[in-house]
């Protein structure tokens, strides 16, 4: 990854993973979505067959989509073929670059098993990122996708991205109106007039 003019006017460079921010709704009913955007390592990657040199490939053993920087001629055709905009040309080395899923880390058997994960997964302080084998139905990621409603981006194209996103989880309890206001307060039945203003509450029991 290289940058150009990092501290000057019009800085630019190549990224593997950008975090974008979106806002849903209109103030005051808004929600903010932080949206990390990287290569999704599609199961049917459209960027691979279009490559004229074979530099763009999908690894057979673990399915990671990669670019062979020694074969790439920098024609940018693969970036046109990716609907997600995951590929960026490196202006200095003049080849196409993209997220490698830290293939050097995840295949490095000299690392302890717990550290054979992409750097972004290890770095995330809230463990918002998960890493695992989506072909193994019992892996942590397969369970998360299945049970927490993981979804792919732009599923219309049939690219079958391996990276899924999990919907925002919210803790909600269902409280009905008649649970807050005791509709069946026995005092009401006896038409006693001495209830405090503002209606009956659960505290009425103490009264």
């Amino acid at each position: 990854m290289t940058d150009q003019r990092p501290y000057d006017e019009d800085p630019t460079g190549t990224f593997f993973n950008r975090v974008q921010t979106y806002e849903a709704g209109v103030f005051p009913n808004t929600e903010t979505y932080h949206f990390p955007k990287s290569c999704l390592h599609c199961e049917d990657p459209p960027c691979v067959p279009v490559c004229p040199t074979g530099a763009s490939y999908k690894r057979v053993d673990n399915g990671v989509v990669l670019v062979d920087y020694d074969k790439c001629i920098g024609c940018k055709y693969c970036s046109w073929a990716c609907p997600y905009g995951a590929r960026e040309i490196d202006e200095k080395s003049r080849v196409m670059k993209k997220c490698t899923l830290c293939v050097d880390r995840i295949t490095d058997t000299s690392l302890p098993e717990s550290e054979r994960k992409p750097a972004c997964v290890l770095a995330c302080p809230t463990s918002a990122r998960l890493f695992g084998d989506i072909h193994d139905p019992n892996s942590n990621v397969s369970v998360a996708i299945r049970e927490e409603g993981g979804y792919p981006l732009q599923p219309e194209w049939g690219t079958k991205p391996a990276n899924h996103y999990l919907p925002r989880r919210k803790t909600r309890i269902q409280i009905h109106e008649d649970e807050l206001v005791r509709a069946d307060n026995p005092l009401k039945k006896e038409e006693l007039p001495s209830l405090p203003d503002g209606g009956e509450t659960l505290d009425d029991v103490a009264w």
Partner: protein
Amino acid sequence: MHPAFSVIFLTTLLGAGQGLFLALYTGQLYALANLLPDQSNDFYIMGSFLSMVLLIAGLIASVFHLGRPERAWRAATQWRTSWLSREVVVLPVAMALTFVYGLFHYLGWTQALFTISDTLPVDATLVTGALGTLASFLLFLCTAMIYASLRFIKAWHTPLTVANFLFLGMASGFMLAAALSAYMGTNLVAFYGTWAVVATTLGAISRGSSLYRNSKFRCKVDMQSAIGVHHSQLHQKAQGFMGGSFNTREFFHGKSDGFLLMVRYIFLLMVFVLPVLLILFAYLSESVRLPIAAFAIQYIGLVLERYYFFTEAKHPQNLYYQSMA
């Protein structure tokens, strides 16, 4: 998409070069069938040379599109899956056949090698010409399919793209053949002019259809699908960087609608209207300069047409850069 001038010149120069070769061979076939008088070898030699120059110029233009042109030979390896690779394979074949076709005419190898049914004398130029014609059509197909095979870019993903590249390339090639025969003083201006008008008309129909088609459809994916949040009011607040990036440079043309509308009207005029009128006047006045002007104007028009072709394409990744889109 951002229109890259390297690719604009590559496709227009190749189109004119291939079209000129097709025009030469069409003339030879007509002469063979005694529908036209036999032409001197000079015309074929000059035509093949010009076609070669255009193809080489196109190849040189393509080099400017590559980050690592020194590795370009590798681009011939993935012809099984990549249309770009297929173009890289077919282009040198077409160039070689054009060269050999011109060489055979230069060497005067036009004696019949054998005769079919006592009526059709087959010589070396007829065989290489037939192979060259096949290669030229294949090259049109490969060049156009590079764009038409990208299913995410709806403006290109249509058979009309192939028709446009074929007809517009043939139009400029036959127009150039008319200009060449006017310049060399051969009596083929009317013949090539007529074919050029036919090809231009076919091109007008297919390009008009694709312009109409592209003005009608909507993109298959929207922002909701792109980030997976199904809320009717989504706004992007940050795109992940403050300056520009490859994503904001490569996929946006940055031109106003008014400018593009102007480009569209100019190219429609310069590709389809003016050359046909000029060829018509050239026919009436037997002018030498008008067919050359017709080709030059149409070629400039085709450069603008290809420029517009790139700006027409809306890439789905643009959904992630709403401030640019």
